[in-house]
């Protein structure tokens, strides 16, 4: 175990509703989620001295801090690579708390991703200069959407492993099954069948409409503080066992396909080695996992990289109810980003905390350690949290 293990904990979680049109500013969504997270654990804005978010978040640190009525900000950081960075703010917050750089760090993600700038469109994000260059380099051929970019490694994955569309459908169906009992989810009371999946239209072969996450408006915030302090607050602490970020030779934001092995497994395996090693845990110690599901097929290489099955064998692992409630490894019991909402992975972090506290809608019994992963096919991150 490293010096970081169990030093910091998630003390509070908060979110807005998830919708297709929030009707208010992204800044207001951020403030509402942060206020809810602070109320959840019984802290106030004056306790917050750190903020972490994504480089893609439109709400700058000082504006958020002033809006919530904070006093002194001692630490703030941002993580790049979109959903690949989903778990990294937690790592940054835990490091800040463990080193005494900050006492209480709020991680937030707030976006009108459906009613505002839609990520599914062929669009040029405001990205750092070098990312804009690689985007253009591929866009001239018509490679302009996240779906098409991620489809290239997943089509290769199918070739190498023999996985078929029907196999990917298991993930899509499981997510909507879990979402069907979650009132916060878009797919509440709307389970789907494998036939529905196979009949849904192609977006970017092999991805069908029902492979794609839900474009969403909403915000999620979590409060990270020291383990010691968290024990005196309102909720049971969710301890951060370990966190890791990874990029490797040839990694790039969804276009790292110029190396020999560009399976979305690669960066996940690098995170997995360090997550388990640093926490002193093995995959068998994990009762449930939040596996990042921007596109359902991406769950396959992640399941393999995080050690739940051998490489290339996810197509068998996902069958026979293995990944649904009551199975060997229920994943995304809230419905994931396919079924609940797409808040860039942060709604999965909130679900992980609820599962540890025993507060989830689809509660799994006896959860002691939960793995949370981030977007794959790009530089990624992950965390293990436990009770």
């Amino acid at each position: 175990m490293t010096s970081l293990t169990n030093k910091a904990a998630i003390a509070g979680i908060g979110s807005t509703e998830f919708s297709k049109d929030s009707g208010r500013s992204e800044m207001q969504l951020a403030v509402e989620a942060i206020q809810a997270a602070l109320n959840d654990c019984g802290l106030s804005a004056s306790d917050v001295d750190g903020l972490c978010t994504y480089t893609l978040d439109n709400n700058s640190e000082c504006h958020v801090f002033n809006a919530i009525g904070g006093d002194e900000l001692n630490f703030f950081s941002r993580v790049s690579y979109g959903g690949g960075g989903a778990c990294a703010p937690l790592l940054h917050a835990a490091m800040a708390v463990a080193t005494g750089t900050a006492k209480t760090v709020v991680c937030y993600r707030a976006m009108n991703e459906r009613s505002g700038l839609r990520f599914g469109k062929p669009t040029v994000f405001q990205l750092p200069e070098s990312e804009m260059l690689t985007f253009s380099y591929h866009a001239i051929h018509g490679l302009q959407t996240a779906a098409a970019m991620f489809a290239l490694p997943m089509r290769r994955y199918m070739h190498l492993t023999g996985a078929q569309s029907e196999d990917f459908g298991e993930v899509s169906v499981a997510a909507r099954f879990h979402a069907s009992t979650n009132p916060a989810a878009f797919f509440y009371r709307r389970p789907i069948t494998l036939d529905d999946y196979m009949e849904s239209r192609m977006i970017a072969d092999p991805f069908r409409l029902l492979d794609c996450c839900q474009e969403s408006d909403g915000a999620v915030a979590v409060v990270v503080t020291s383990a010691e302090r968290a024990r005196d607050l309102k909720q049971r602490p969710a301890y951060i066992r370990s966190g890791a970020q990874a990029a490797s030779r040839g990694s790039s934001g969804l276009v790292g396909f110029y190396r020999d092995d560009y399976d979305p497994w690669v960066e996940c395996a690098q995170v997995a080695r360090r997550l388990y090693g640093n926490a002193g845990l093995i995959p068998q110690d994990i009762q449930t996992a939040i596996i990042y599901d921007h596109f359902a097929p991406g769950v396959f290489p992640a399941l393999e990289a995080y050690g739940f099955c051998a490489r290339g064998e996810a197509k068998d692992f996902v069958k026979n109810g293995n990944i649904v409630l009551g199975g060997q490894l229920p994943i995304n019991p809230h419905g994931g980003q396919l079924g609940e909402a797409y808040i860039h992975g942060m709604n999965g972090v909130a679900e992980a905390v609820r599962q540890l506290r025993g507060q989830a809608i689809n509660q799994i019994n006896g959860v002691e350690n939960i793995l949370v992963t981030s977007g794959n096919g790009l530089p990624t991150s992950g965390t293990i949290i436990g009770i």
Partner: protein
Amino acid sequence: MAIHSSKDYDFFYAGLAEKQILVQRCQQCEKLRNPPSPACASCGSLEWAPFEIRGRGTVNSFTVHHYPPLADFPVPHILALVDMDAGIRLLGGMHIAPPVEPAIGMRVQARFDDALTTPVYRFYPVPTKAAE
């Protein structure tokens, strides 16, 4: 869609305007590379020269973009990653006449197509073994 270039990338777009597919070749260790970069990741040399890629290659992976519509290409639009015989992987659009379907392992040839509004190469299947 407006092209975003820099001093590292300008040679590539200049090549396209001349109907050439250019990548960089390290002047020190002769390794080919793309996307463009100021340095060779193998030997660290900053010295490079443009190198023209011609001929054939093998499809390493592909996707067919169906939705949403693209400004410069009719959909469905096939995109392929191709391992060129010259020893480097390229991304490009792909033109196939039905009923042929794109497939990994398919032999293709890169050509510039006057029908496209943007000056860019596309991959076309090499029809039969005899054509090799």
